[in-house]
């Protein structure tokens, strides 16, 4: 066998020739050692680095237990895993130089001293206390060659060396000597004459136009053999190649940012206290495999039924263990869904008895993973990337099994172990396709024989990284068998090979893709070398165009310039369709009615036509969550005061402790994220707000003699609208926050708002446009037709203020809102809009308002607000009603024509 050996040849093509070869191979250091291991009967199963670190960590722990003063002790106490990993790196690097700890005598520099101390207590080997590194393998090969296997036929006739043996670091010169002694001919390849290839450098300003240029270059006819040297990711370039019917290069890196590599970390996060419900929701929602076909839903880690119901529960109550959560479990059981139920129970167990953050005992952690292993195996169907996640979990269990089962791990150490257990996976885009050109990713591996090289994305990443020993360390290493080169000499090994590779080309065409993710990679040192020889002139994309042709480095393609396309801005603020009585609603909530009035088209889009965003597993958070929480606190406090004889709650004002206790009890169920670390200050603030404001709610109502009779009272009453095409009865549905009665039996509806604005609701009230209040009062009247008309008002949870005409509630001395008149205006407006829609006219309310005020859609906020205020006033004066639209900030803004790119 003939071996072409180069220091940088690992991963290179075995030969440059096409057709077939046998008995020839190009190998780098890793490949050659592997071959010799096979030849010498020194093969062994692979060992995960995580396992080696765990071994070293336990060795360190034992050594530290001996009580001796030890240099790494302080760092080990802070971070055992990384300290072990760091020491192990140094240890492997020292072994790589050929240093033998056993031969090192006397005082040593700190790093080597620590390594020696540990080395004395360990045995290297598959079954030893430390699994071997690549350097140990090499040392073992040399030892065998120099001893028992001297004269052993290796089946290697010749090794053609790209580097002088003496230029190689560590044990390599020695290995080569041993091979020669074993009868292998070692020949140093003749130095090729350093040529200077012709050079073209295109500096693109973005990766897509860079990719166009590179793809065009490959698509155009050109002379001679060509090679693509892909120094950077080619995903974008590959798309440009496919667009032109050309094969992809497929240099796309592995990553752990893929859904199925997220499983383990997320699972353990959820299994550890305090449980973060958002993480829990993410785990429930996690999809790990594509569906069986394009239109099917992707497969989740948690079975679909369990996922949907538990997520539904969290969406209602963002906490664990509350009524919604328990009901979800019960419903799975009631429906006899066995597998989902089992999974749901497992999740429930996981979060109701989470691992304490400060008691992560390896055995306990490992045990929790059993279900995950089982579930992954079931979902993976024996193939695909999920098996990588499974392997990761199993390696983790292996590592955990090596640690002291009773010594708790820090949260961080566990995370480090998880990270070290791998889990990054190849991209489905990392596929090199058959092409006319050859492909390599490293300049040193460019084929002999010149030709044209298209160099994609050279950058500072081509700089070599080397391990650095200090003077004193070098002396110590050499004293015990080490062979250390200067850092610059080691770096030169790679740079010289890279430059030699590049100089084998006749012509190098460089495409610099510009910023990636808005960061421009640092300049390439290798390119600087080429430019120093060939000149620094760089090409701009523009300079490649002339007379309807695009050309680069002698290759050319005809190009055309497409006509400019500019989308048109919508002109008329109204849509005309065929009469559409089938779009009329059968049910309306207050929200729908309000949308209908604000912008009929928006209502049509969202409700009548069903154009809606997908439901995403996003739990309520922020103001919405706090609003719900405080509503529930009110509800609970009212229930606690409910006296059936009174037909409502007593007028007793809850004391701060009672409000606090209720708040504290409800947070884990309704706003459990407030209990997470880092949220204490916020939680304290909300609680303080709640106490002050709810005391005000109860004090105020008591002062006004109002007895609360119900909270969250649901209603569904028929509402008959006198439409042009005949009366139509729809169901008006919703719920009222707070119902109350005064001593005379007169009812009051209160709506609770957790809102920043302090003036908005007062304004709605004063203008009689608080149609929410009007409609709630109307529903009360419908439910109890004989009763006197109800009062209505707001309570602002944030500021603890009422908006009401009752001076006992609100000191602003407001005039009472004419609830009946408001309702009349609302009903008439709704009737009008529905008549129009039935007849085929859908007004775009938001556009109409702007057009009437002569404003563009991108007019500044204050101008639009002013226009709204004016229009409201005008409508009011005409006896009508204008409801402010929120189309511009809604999800339908684009379809309403309020946002758009008409450049």
């Amino acid at each position, binding site marked *: 066998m003939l071996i072409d050996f180069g220091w940088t040849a690992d991963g290179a*093509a075995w030969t440059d020739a096409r057709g*077939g*070869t*046998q*008995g020839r191979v190009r190998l780098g250091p890793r490949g050659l050692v592997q071959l010799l291991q096979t030849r010498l*009967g020194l093969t*062994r199963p692979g060992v995960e680095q995580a396992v080696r670190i765990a071994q070293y960590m336990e060795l360190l722990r034992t050594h530290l237990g001996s009580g001796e003063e030890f*240099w790494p002790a302080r*760092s080990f106490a*802070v*971070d055992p895993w*990384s*300290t072990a990993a*760091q020491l192990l790196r140094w240890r492997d690097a020292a072994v790589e130089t050929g240093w033998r700890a056993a031969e090192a005598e006397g005082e040593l520099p700190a790093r080597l001293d620590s390594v020696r101390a540990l080395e004395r207590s360990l045995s290297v080997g598959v*079954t030893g206390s430390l699994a071997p590194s690549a350097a140990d393998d090499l040392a073992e090969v040399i030892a065998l060659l120099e001893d028992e296997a001297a004269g052993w036929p290796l089946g290697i006739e010749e090794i053609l060396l790209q580097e002088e043996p003496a230029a190689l670091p560590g044990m390599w010169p020695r290995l080569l000597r041993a091979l020669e002694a074993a009868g292998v001919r070692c020949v140093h390849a003749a130095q090729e004459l350093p040529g200077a290839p012709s050079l073209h450098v295109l500096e693109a300003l*973005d990766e*897509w136009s860079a990719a166009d240029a590179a793809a065009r270059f490959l698509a155009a006819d050109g002379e001679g053999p060509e090679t693509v040297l892909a120094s950077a990711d080619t995903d974008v370039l590959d*798309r440009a190649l496919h667009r*032109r*019917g050309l094969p*992809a290069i497929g240099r796309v890196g592995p990553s*752990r*940012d*893929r*859904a199925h590599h*997220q499983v383990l970390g*997320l699972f353990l996060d959820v299994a550890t206290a305090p449980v973060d419900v958002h*993480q829990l929701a*993410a785990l429930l929602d996690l*999809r790990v495999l*594509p569906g069986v076909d*394009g*239109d099917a839903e992707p497969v989740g880690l948690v079975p679909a039924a369990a996922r949907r119901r538990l997520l539904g529960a969290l969406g209602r109550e963002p906490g664990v263990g509350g009524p919604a959560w328990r009901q979800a479990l019960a419903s799975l059981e009631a429906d006899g869904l066995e597998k989902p139920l089992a999974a749901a129970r497992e999740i429930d167990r996981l979060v109701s008895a989470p691992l304490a953050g400060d008691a992560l005992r390896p055995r306990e952690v490992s045990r929790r993973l059993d279900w995950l292993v089982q579930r992954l195996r079931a979902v993976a169907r024996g193939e695909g990337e999920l098996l990588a996640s499974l392997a990761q979990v199993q390696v983790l269990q292996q590592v955990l099994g090596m640690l002291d089962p009773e010594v708790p791990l820090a949260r*961080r150490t566990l995370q480090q172990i998880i990270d070290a257990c791998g889990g990054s996976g190849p*991209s*489905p885009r990392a*596929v*090199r396709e058959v*092409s006319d050109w050859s492909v390599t990713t490293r300049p040193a591996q460019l084929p002999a024989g010149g030709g044209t090289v298209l160099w994609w994305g050279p950058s500072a990443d081509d*700089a070599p990284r080397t391990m650095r020993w*200090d*003077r*004193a360390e070098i002396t110590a290493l050499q004293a015990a068998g080490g062979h250390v080169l200067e850092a610059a000499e080691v770096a030169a090994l790679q*740079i010289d090979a890279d430059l030699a590779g590049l100089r084998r080309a006749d012509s190098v065409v460089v495409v610099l893709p510009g910023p990636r*993710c*808005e960061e421009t990679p640092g*300049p390439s040192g290798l390119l600087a070398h080429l430019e120093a020889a060939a000149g620094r002139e760089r090409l701009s994309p523009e300079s490649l165009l002339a007379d309807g042709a695009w050309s680069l480095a002698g290759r050319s393609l005809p190009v055309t*310039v*497409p006509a*400019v396309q500019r989308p048109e801005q919508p002109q008329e603020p109204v849509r005309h*369709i*065929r009469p559409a009585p089938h779009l009329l609603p059968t049910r309306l909530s207050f929200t729908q009615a309000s949308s209908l009035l604000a912008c009929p088209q928006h209502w049509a889009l969202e409700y009548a036509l069903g*154009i809606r965003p*997908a439901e995403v597993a996003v739990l309520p958070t922020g103001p919405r969550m706090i609003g719900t929480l405080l509503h529930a606190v009110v509800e609970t406090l009212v229930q606690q005061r409910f006296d059936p004889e009174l037909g409502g709650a007593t007028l007793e004002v809850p004391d701060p402790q009672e409000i606090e206790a209720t708040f504290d009890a409800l947070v884990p169920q309704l706003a459990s994220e407030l209990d997470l*670390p880092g949220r*204490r200050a916020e939680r304290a603030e909300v609680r*303080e707000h709640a106490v002050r404001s709810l005391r005000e709610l109860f004090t105020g109502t008591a002062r006004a003699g109002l007895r609360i009779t119900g909270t969250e009272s649901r209603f569904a009453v028929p509402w008959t609208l006198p439409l042009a095409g005949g009366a139509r009865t729809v169901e008006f549905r919703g719920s009222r926050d707070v119902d109350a009665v005064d001593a005379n039996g007169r009812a009051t509806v209160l709506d609770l708002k957790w809102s920043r604005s302090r003036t908005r609701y007062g304004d709605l009230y004063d203008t009689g446009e608080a149609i929410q209040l009007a409609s709630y009062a109307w529903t009360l009247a419908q439910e109890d037709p004989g009763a006197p008309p109800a009062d209505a008002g707001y309570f602002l949870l944030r500021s603890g203020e009422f908006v009401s005409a009752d001076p006992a509630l609100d*000191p602003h001395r407001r005039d009472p809102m004419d609830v009946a008149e408001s309702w009349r205006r609302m009903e008439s407006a709704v009737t009008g809009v529905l008549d129009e829609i039935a007849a085929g006219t859908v007004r775009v309310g938001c556009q109409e308002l702007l057009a009437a005020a002569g404003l563009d859609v991108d007019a500044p906020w204050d101008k639009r607000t002013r226009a709204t205020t004016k229009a409201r006033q005008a409508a009011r004066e005409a006896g009508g009603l204008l409801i402010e639209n929120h189309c511009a900030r809604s999800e339908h803004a*684009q*379809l309403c024509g309020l946002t758009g790119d008409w450049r």
Partner: protein
Amino acid sequence: MSPTFTLINASAGSGKTHTLTHEIAERIAEGLDPSELIATTFTTKAAAELRDRVRRTLLERGQLEAARGIDSALISTVNSVSGDLLREFALDAGISPEVQVLDQDRQKIAFRAAIDETAALAGARASDLLARTEHDGEEDPDRPYATTPSWRAHVRDLAARARTNLVDAPALRDGADAAWQEYQQAALPAAAGEDRRPAWLAQLDLALEGLRAEVHSSEAGDGPFTEKGAGTVRTRLESLAALRRQVADPARAPWSAWAKLAAVAAGKAADPAATGYVYSKDVDLALLGVAGMVQAELLTSPVLHQDIRSLIELVMGTAADSLDAYRTFKDELGLIDFVDQEVRTLDLVRSSSRAREVIASRFHLLAVDEFQDTSPVQLALFLELSRLIDDKIWVGDPKQAIYGFRDADPALMLGIMAQIEAGSSGLGTASVRDLEHSWRSQEPVLDLVNAVFPQVFPELPRHRVVMDAAPAAVAQRAEAGHVAGRLEAWLPEVPKKLTYPQHATAVADGILTLLDQPRTSPADIAVLVRSNRRAAEVVEALGARGVPASGEGVPILASREGRLVRAALAVTLDLSDTLALTELVDLLPDHAAHGTWFGDLAQAPDREGRSAVFARWWQDPTLAGLRDLREDCISLTPVEMVTALVDALDLPERIRAWSTPDQRLRTLDALRKVAAQYADRARADSSPITLTGLRIELDAVEQGPDLTGAPDTVWVGTIHGAKGLEWPQVVVMLDHDPTERDQTAGSFVVPAPQLDVAAPLADRSPRYWPGVLARYAPLQEALAQSAHARRRTGAEQEESGRLQYVAFTRSADVTVLSGDGSAPVLDGLVPAESEEAEPLLAWSAGGEAIRVRGGGSLPAVVRSPRGELAERADGYRARRSPLAATDLSGPAPVRAERARARFQASGVDSADDLGEVLPPRTIGRRLVPGGGPQWERVGEAVHAYLALPLAHLSAAQQENAAARLVQRWAVSRAVDPGVLREAGDAWARFLAEEFPDAEELTEQPITWWNEEDQVMEGWVDTLLRMPDGQIVLVDHKSYPGDDPVEHVREKYLGQMTTYSRALAAAGRAPERILMHLPLRGEVIEIELAAHVR
């Protein structure tokens, strides 16, 4: 070698980097090894550039060897150098060697999390105090202006400042008392004995009562007010009622409410010369009594005194606690922030003797670029390193130190420089070089600089401020026929007083004039402004005239391409997203339903009908790419997904036909960045990274792409952003009335009375002054006169001078000053001796020069661009971008499966028609019955054993090898070494009988390109070569099962066919193919079908 210290003062454009790289190259030529160089600068971009420049300089000078080794030099940002040193000496410092560095955003979050508990407790206790002093605002409000200050934000600021100045927790606690004493002395009269607020309240009630009665009577026609007047008073009474409610509860009544009342006593009602009334004339008159009382007593209130003091103690005490809490928090999580990096490195370099020795032995040149931008800690670190490293070159320009807001401390730095220069630093003989030639700017530009800045920097020697054009540069320009340089002064034409939006419009108008000049493109021009807000105005004004501007582009979600990607992502992930689907239809003009979608959908009779319409839309050919993507998107990363969506929508081709394709392509990259940042953040928060998460993230994106460097755009940005950059023509948009903020509140550090190079940060002490009653003039005016406020104001002034220097030195050919005929900001820096004196710089319409105070004048083109746009004003006609040209036509091709370039023989499918599997021949004992435990590993061990040149090994060697393999593969429980030897012996016997003269070649490499040009590289287990050259292919398979023939047929026919054909291509096809099943003790022969041989 004795230590040396070279200090290079490099004025703007004087070839700083050139000088530095040549100095470095010179040192290397003199024998410095590249690995002995440590060079720092301030941004990663600058560091990459510096490395590149050093390499190119070495190459130009023919120092090839050094150029190859330059990667071993440590050329990096300060933080990166610190990070490297810390990692290297982590065990010496007793810290984790693998810390995660927090970026600025995460640092903020981590700090908040760390002090959460401390702050929650302290805040809860101090709730009423914070209400009275109005420091209970949100920490990160949505709208930062006009909100209540947050005491926690102040804690954060103070703690950050303490950390960059090496102020520790005890010093913070100690500082509280001093801060209070100084505050009190500066602005508060002695405290009165009692709390007078009840009296104020009573007096206020009386006044309100009186007013109400008067309104009442007036409305009845019998009072002091007219009908209209009564109406006014009535509305004012409402806001007074609100104020009354505010002060009702003394525990929480804000001091500002009282101050508002007190202001009445300073208004027109009390003093006819004052500017106006606080409420209205009648109301103010009625309130005068109570207002006077409050005004006289407010600042003596013992409660107010106590509140200010308590607030100082709360903030400084909590900041002190927070330093400890934050440190513990980070240590537990293995986190570190930028400041820690520097502080800990400094600590390390000071305390670890190993680190000191290694650094001193390893590095021999310390180059510091942009030294003027160092923070106090960085400066201390550089000084410490300078003690260890014998050769130092520090390059920079104190005139360009403009990072005071980031805690750089120019005063400290200048003090140190002075000592180094004087040779009194103990860091070696200092040699100072001043670079006085400008390689950047032409004479007229320099004339302006030279006329203005010696006055702005009176303390600097003149030769360090003025510059002349480098003769070589002048000659070069002359030779290239470069346009002559000039000054311009713009005086916007507006009807009334110039506003900023008008100014922006005028700048855009002026730029159109510049673009009319020959050989001028937008990329030649920059507009420098004071703030991001001004920049936004100018960008908008340029946009209105069709001039593309750089900076931040159109927000991602406001761009067609951004919306398309967003909608495509949503619908690809979830087909039920009918909104996203409809948006796609609406955005894609070639979609069949584009333009008719509303009507189509409205026509559908019911829900099922609408579902059918949606389904039809999804099947449209324009969405074919997305349909393909839907099938395999689940395993893509967020960044890959964005790339895939861009491709599926064929955006790169579509964009060519749209306006500004260059900018739109940047949007695509910005989208990738959103995806990358999302992934980074999720990873840091240990949240899962999912495409659904990406979707949510994308929905919330507000920013636009970074258009820096986009072709044919005018650069618009702040002076800070322009640092280090240059353009042919620069428009400096001058502030109209540069207001100085009063430096009466906030956190700050009091400098040491005496500066010590050996301990530059010693004796500095922290302070916090709260912004209580921030709008109450009597208090604020007194505070503004304090030594602290005056010193801070002075520092701000100096910074402003340096900022102007940076602005005026950015242009090569043309500097344009745009403003209202003068530069008020310069007048603030160089006050005139008399009030009537001319401004420092002045110009007027129709003039031909910029007049300089004191008589001089500089020739200039004076223009009056229009500050208000006429209807249909002319715009700039941007030429079509070169990126619009395409080599393609027609829609994207349909996705096709393509052959992979590489394949493995073992992956080639088996098929029955590939050949015949003959019945097995027994050659030995069955070694492993059935599967057996660990049979796969046993197989590996046997396989490895058979790969050895057994025939040439002695029995002892064989035995050792077998034992080794059993041990290494950890299969001793399943087999003993004898089993391996038995397999070897059986195989040897078989060979001896069957192929007596064959040469056995084990583990042979073969490569093969198949008909589809796919390449296979692999190892053949064994080749037997006959004396006549014929070969036999052998493969060992560790199959322990019971149906070997079927197994081979099912699994290996493809592999063997491939090997056989590969061998044929390499010269000779195998005559026979054997499968050796050592675990079963059998050999099976395969006869390949003729068509595959």
